[in-house]
């Protein structure tokens, strides 16, 4: 049973990744958009916010990675909802396969896509002058933390996907929620420059926390505090949204 579950999950993850081949738009989502954001932030705002674009890149790259990661979690929900509304799920569920493999396959594939986007942003950042001031262990830890966080946060979009009727609604819900969460944070600017009431929100915001942790692991600086808080946030997302999603999943399908 478990071997079957793993095989089914691998097949369905493969299927999600092969979709990219036929849907260049997805490639845009996972590659062109992050690159565009990185270039825009660095060269349009960079000089105004920090002294030079290069200096700003050092601060903002981890934040841009985190922002991109959070928006990319929406793809899990959009994909699931599309499968349900188009009838692909019914076909899968009429087959003698492990019950949760359609969900697991989607999540595995999306974590792989996330890894690709993080590597892409980091690679481009390095080409533009970002310096990694720490060792390989810290870089690996940063990757693991970012991916773990993405996995945990994606359950939120899974839950939304189970509750709404169309994929577009997952997108709309996500955008409405994620714009304030990713921008009112320490991802792009130091929260100390914000009005007090906004700063209070930015300081506890998971975007800030995770961006600080990634910054610490890549550029040096405080690590223990932000990493712990990131893990707490991730655990919170997982504990709240995974059970709710699984329950909604059982009901919906």
């Amino acid at each position, binding site marked *: 049973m478990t071997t079957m579950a793993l095989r089914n999950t691998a097949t369905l993850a493969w299927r999600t990744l092969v979709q990219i081949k*036929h849907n260049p738009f997805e490639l845009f989502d996972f590659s062109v958009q992050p690159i565009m954001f990185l270039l825009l932030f660095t060269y349009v705002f960079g000089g105004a916010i920090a002294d030079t674009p290069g200096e700003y890149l050092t601060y903002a790259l981890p934040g841009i990675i985190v922002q991109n990661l959070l928006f990319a979690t929406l793809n899990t929900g959009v994909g699931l909802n599309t499968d349900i509304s188009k009838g692909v799920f019914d*076909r899968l569920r*009429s*087959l*003698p396969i492990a019950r949760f493999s359609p969900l697991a396959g989607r999540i595995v594939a999306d974590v792989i896509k996330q890894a690709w986007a993080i590597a892409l942003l980091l690679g481009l950042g390095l080409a533009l002058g970002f310096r990694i001031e720490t060792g390989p262990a810290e870089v690996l830890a940063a990757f693991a933390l970012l991916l773990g966080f993405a996995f945990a946060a994606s359950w939120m979009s899974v839950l939304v996907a189970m509750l709404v009727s169309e994929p577009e609604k997952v997108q709309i819900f996500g955008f409405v929620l994620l714009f304030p969460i990713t921008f009112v944070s320490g991802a792009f600017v130091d929260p100390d420059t914000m009005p007090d009431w906004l700063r209070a929100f930015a300081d506890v915001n998971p975007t800030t926390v995770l961006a600080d942790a990634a910054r610490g692991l890549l550029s040096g600086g405080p690590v223990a505090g932000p990493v712990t808080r990131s893990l707490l946030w991730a655990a919170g997302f997982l504990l709240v949204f995974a059970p709710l999603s699984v329950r909604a999943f059982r009901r919906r399908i």
Partner: protein
Amino acid sequence: MDTTYAIHAEGLVKRFGDTTALDGVDLAVRPGTVLGLLGPNGAGKTTAVRVLATLIRPDAGHAAVGGFDVVRQPHEVRGLIGLTGQYASVDETLNGTENLLMIGRLLGLSRRAARARAAALLARFELTDAAGRAAGKYSGGMRRRLDLAASLVGDPRVLYLDEPTTGLDPRSRNEVWDIVRGLVADGTTVLLTTQYLDEADRLAGEIVVIDHGRVIATGTPAQLKARAGAQTVTVRPSDAGELGLIGEAVARVAIGPVDVTGEVVTAPVSDPGALAKLVRDLDEHGLTVAELALRSPSLDEVFLSLTGERS
């Protein structure tokens, strides 16, 4: 475990909120036969298929496929069935080969076996040329064929076809019908839902008519037609000027109102000698006709009379 029937359902009830989609449906399908489940939109056809395909649980009643209970042994049931329909769909973002490959792999075939199976099915359904194209770019008929192919990867003993030709042009519809006939000849049991009486008439050995979640008639197409009783005589005069005279002649054998529409006279008759009488009558009056036909009621008429009775 009763295996007299490939599909056997008793007293199926399914409610969605205030709506009762199935209100005590019984079905019995013998192995290797086609049952046509006929009904208007919203009659409960798709709900019945979804229960039998283990996609939803009935609120009451029980159903078995190949002797396995759909609620208690869903995994075993899934191993026997194939599902094609309005709702169970192929992945539009994958190409033809990838769709079939995915299902083959999910069913436990090796990579090589899954490839071979995909290629064989694509060839059988004349999709080899489109194998590399995304299914979303297929025409309606091609998509339906790919859908059918996808439901056949596992060589199902029982196949559910949920409105398999809705929205298809006549040629594609004929292709789907040929495929279904071939499958049945090979021993597959088919449950076909359709709104088209024509389709049930051509494919199904037995028809169950449902409306508002209840079975309102069961029988062979011939039995259902006999239930509606009267046959219809149709006469088209050679000379439209004689329409009135011919109408009078028809009225002498008719058992109901004579309908004169355009250049055709139709009327219900029941006496087996009515046609001969009419021909003699026409001959005596020197009336010539371009067309003279006696036919059984179409299933459409049966259907309307059955569903009309209830509402």
